């Protein structure tokens, strides 16, 4: 049966995050011919609405207010609730990002609804909408559904393909008038620490370093390789614990769970907790001087060698072939 699906889109530095488009694609699937409505909130988001149509939204709702310049659960929670109450969707999809993880459970609680977090795939089984999600940080998976009522889910970046961009698509943009009151948490300041613009959870390519990089400076050749590939830099807990990098880079069971197209592990031994966070990547490359290292058991391609020799050579080689293209 056709359904009305609300997709909460998200922007970062004035650009829509790709996961917004992936969530629209997921929404299309669930809508089964019904309407997909994308909502975007922020201080100034008018420039972003076109792309939402290009990637498949049938209708767009924008909510603009200076109090939405940074995310707060109260501010964004009020806006999304108002939109939900006015359109009464059958399903609501959020990106599984900092924002989605923070606001979706609040709304689910408010609506007394079931929420499926971190969905990596969606299928229709008769009238049921079945979501796949990782459990035990990717050591296993489960299929889940919401039993009744409005369906809420957060969509993990990089797993559901966005639709082909179609610039001929357009539609009507509705402006949701919002009055934002009673903000109980106030963001005083945002300190930008992420080194490059590429976010780990959304990155198509990740270059990750472990204790084998030996120092903070040891991450430099990895960063150079990442720059050439447009990749994000990640790390093992070994590297974080040794203070070579910030904990926000940690990948694994107690860090980020990532599924890029390409994961290049440099000087990482491949402990079970690390593998939990990255072994569902499409292609894994391991560079390690120990041929017995466990990481080689999950790697598609391995180079046994000193990362300080191999990584710069790899950077050179990629530079060469990517330039001639």
């Amino acid at each position, binding site marked *: 049966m056709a359904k009305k699906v609300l997709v909460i889109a998200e922007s970062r530095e004035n650009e829509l995050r790709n996961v917004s488009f992936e969530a629209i694609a997921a929404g299309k699937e669930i809508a089964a011919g019904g309407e997909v409505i994308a909502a975007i909130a922020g201080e100034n988001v008018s420039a972003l609405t076109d792309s939402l149509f290009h990637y498949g939204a049938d209708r767009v709702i924008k909510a603009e207010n200076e109090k939405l310049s940074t*995310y707060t659960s109260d501010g964004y929670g009020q806006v999304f609730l108002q939109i939900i109450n006015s359109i009464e969707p059958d399903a609501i999809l959020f990106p599984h990002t*900092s924002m989605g*993880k*923070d606001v*979706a*459970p*609040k709304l*689910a*609680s*408010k609506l*007394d*609804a*079931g*929420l499926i*977090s*971190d969905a990596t795939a969606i299928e229709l089984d008769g009238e049921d909408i*079945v979501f796949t999600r990782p459990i*035990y940080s*990717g*050591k*296993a998976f489960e*299929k*889940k559904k*919401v*039993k009744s*009522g409005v369906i809420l889910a957060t969509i993990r970046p990089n797993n559901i393909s966005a639709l082909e961009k179609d610039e001929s698509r357009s539609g009507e943009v509705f402006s949701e008038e919002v009055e934002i009151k009673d903000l*109980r*948490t*106030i963001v*005083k300041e*945002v300190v930008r*620490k*992420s080194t490059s613009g590429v*976010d780990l*959870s959304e990155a198509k*390519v990740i270059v990750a370093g472990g204790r084998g990089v030996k120092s903070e400076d040891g991450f430099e050749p990895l960063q150079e390789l990442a720059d050439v590939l447009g990749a994000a830099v990640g790390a093992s807990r070994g590297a974080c614990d040794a203070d070579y990098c*910030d904990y*926000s880079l*940690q990948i694994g069971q*107690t860090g980020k769970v990532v599924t890029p*197209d*390409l994961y290049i592990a440099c000087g990482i031994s491949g402990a*079970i*907790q690390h593998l*939990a966070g990255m*072994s569902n990547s499409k*292609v894994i490359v391991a560079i390690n001087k120990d041929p017995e290292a466990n990481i080689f058991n999950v*790697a*598609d*391609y*391995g*180079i*046994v*060698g000193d990362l300080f020799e191999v990584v710069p*050579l*790899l950077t050179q*080689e*990629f530079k060469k*072939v*990517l330039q001639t293209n």
Partner: protein
Amino acid sequence: MNIFVIMKRTFDTEEKIVIENGKISEEGVEFIINPYDEYAIEEAIQLRDDHGGEVTVVSIGSEEVEKELRTALAMGADKAVLINNEELDESDQYTTTALLAAYFEDKEYDIILGGNVSNDNSTGQIGPRLAEKMGIPYVTTITKLDIDGSTATIERDVEGDVEIVEAQLPLLVTAQQGLNEPRYPSLPGIMKAKKKPLEEIDYDELDIDEDEIGAKTETLERYLPPKKEAGKVLEGEVDNQVQELVKLLRQEAKVI
């Protein structure tokens, strides 16, 4: 200060997952305090040491959770509460939130700390769901917490950036790695923990309507991902290996 920690018992991170009859097997599995909840417990103890008051650790689960609650007491928490849900037919984040909210209904609290996500189901829903249900503000993934009077100044991790947030108590926060270095229970701590109060409540002793707290979601299937085969280890001179790798990534794997 009345400080509460909500704590979950989870599989040790070393455990491999085995599925039997569609369920995750717990046979021979070592359990631990959910790693993020250790940060919450440590932070709670430090808050109490700085501001006075009491730390109560609350966990919903089976009888077995007593072991992890004793560990929390050995770290330095003052009291523990086990809400036994073994008789419950079904449960999900909605149910767990409802039970916790019912527990807190007649409590006085200044701050509730939890982990930002569990190590098993990993939804991260409980913190925000519970705060919303209780009508208090929340801040997730915190890496620093200072309390002055009734004002909390917090640093939170937002995908690598740091947000500095101010909020008023009563408040719920969820811990991110980097918040602190959780202590190991000391031997005297372990001895003392044996005598500290550990209250056990059956979930149906809470003020709940059983028909109202049923799970909103249903798990249909659990499975293991396809086993990753060990791949190709390249050979030859380093230069050649590197060239070969780049070629393979572009032509065979087609990821670059």
